[in-house]
């Protein structure tokens, strides 16, 4: 379980899906990183934050039955790797649907939801989850 500052540092990316683009080669990365793994030193100082649309499609998914303790109330829940339209892939939960409603290729969009809480009186952590895009 992350403590408040550990989580807070990543809020830009967790709340707003802010990634980073290397201005040397144009590739996108999520979460932000200091150095482009393709351009190496040429990318230093040229990594530019970009807010993604938060839309993409399911690359793979699983229904988690044996989750970690803090998510016990959610079980079973769905976790997917989502391929964002901007290029990067991210891991996140898929909610507001049954596992039978999704398949590899299903369009999804990100929404802000509660990820976890530090006990009954502690800090609540928020971040992105994904919901299927209706009619697509």
């Amino acid at each position, binding site marked *: 379980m992350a403590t408040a500052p550990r989580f807070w540092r990543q809020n830009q990316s967790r709340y707003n899906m802010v990634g980073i683009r290397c201005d040397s080669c144009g590739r996108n990365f999520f979460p932000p990183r200091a150095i482009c793994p393709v351009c190496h030193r040429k990318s230093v100082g040229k990594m530019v934050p970009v807010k993604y649309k938060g839309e993409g499609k399911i*690359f793979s998914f699983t*229904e988690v*039955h*044996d989750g*970690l303790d803090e998510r016990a109330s959610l079980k079973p829940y769905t*976790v997917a790797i989502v391929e964002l339209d901007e290029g990067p892939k991210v*891991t*996140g939960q898929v909610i507001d649907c049954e*596992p039978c409603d999704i398949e590899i290729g299903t369009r999804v969009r990100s929404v802000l939801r509660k*990820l976890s809480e530090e006990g009954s009186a502690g800090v609540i952590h928020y971040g992105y989850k994904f919901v299927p895009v209706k009619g697509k």
Partner: protein
Amino acid sequence: MTMRKVAVIGVGDTKFGELWDASFRDIGIRAGLSAVEDANITAEKIDAVFVGNMSAGRFIEQEHIGALIADYAGLARDHIPATRVEAAGASGGLALRQGYMAIASGLHDIVVVGGAEKMMDVSDVASAFIQSSAADQEWETELGATFPSLHALIARRHMHEHGTTREQLADVAVKNHRHGSMNPKAQFQKEITRDTVIGSLMVSSPLRMFDCAPSSDGAAAVVLCPLDQAKKYTDSAVEIAGTGQASDTLALHHRRDILAFDATRVAAERAFKMAGVAHKDIDVAEVHDNFTISEILAIEDLGFFKKGEGGKATEEGRTSLEGDVAVNTSGGLKARGDPIGATGLAQAVEIVTQLRGKAGKRQVKDASVGLTHNVGGTGATAVVHVFRRF
């Protein structure tokens, strides 16, 4: 500077499983002592110790494992260098490589490399949480992924792209339990069927309980020396002919292709090149089957079978004791057990035992070249060693 060739002159291990009567230091010393006895050396000969361990800090709230093991091995007065090595599930394999480099470089002549993990002193829930820290804590685990679920994502996609079947995944566990039934040190020594696997509790779809390696206590160790000195100690030395290590993105979602562990492929290429062998020369291999899908990826990435054909090859028995390449004759992580830091060394113990012709009922006939493949996380670290009868 030329490197010296390196040999294994002694091996030792504990039984793997629920070792309630033994502490972390107990199992570490048991394995080390049996390796030292096997090598027929005395304590004064030992120049250095390396210990592979993933998370003693969280499993038993003890860090500083190198000095601890050297101390309880009775070596405190000798003041030898004792170093802990960590790379999640690949900790043991990396410790072996550190020992190899220490001998090859000429720095040391006798090195003991051990691996140990004491997992059963914490609850299943705590253990799962600790194991998930091998993945990216901030961008996988916090978002809902568990360690099994990341492998389930691989399995689902492998089935989607390559047509791997639920039954083929089960066949990995069935084979490894059959091999484990012939290994008196294995955690599980009972054979199972496809139905056992497919009817077991769902963990993270499509992976079920019997697709997953267990939590285990256990330790394993080897003694290394320069190849040209090995005959002084033993007639059954085995050469470490090649070593390769590689890394990749920590998070699974950042990989070039989640269906191939590039770190495995590159580590194998480096080890094969060094040993002057190819995948077709390998008679027996211990690969990192922490999940059934992991063995399918491993036998593809190591080059034994084409990408996408690992499931079919397993179904056809080509990786069984009698197959083209005998994979996980010890029972693998699945049946022998997976005390994380010990696993890479347990693999080495099994291959040396096979190349000595001492593997009993599970002996691969005329085995002369063997391989170990140890993975950390979902493939962010891989280490491959090639062993040759000497």
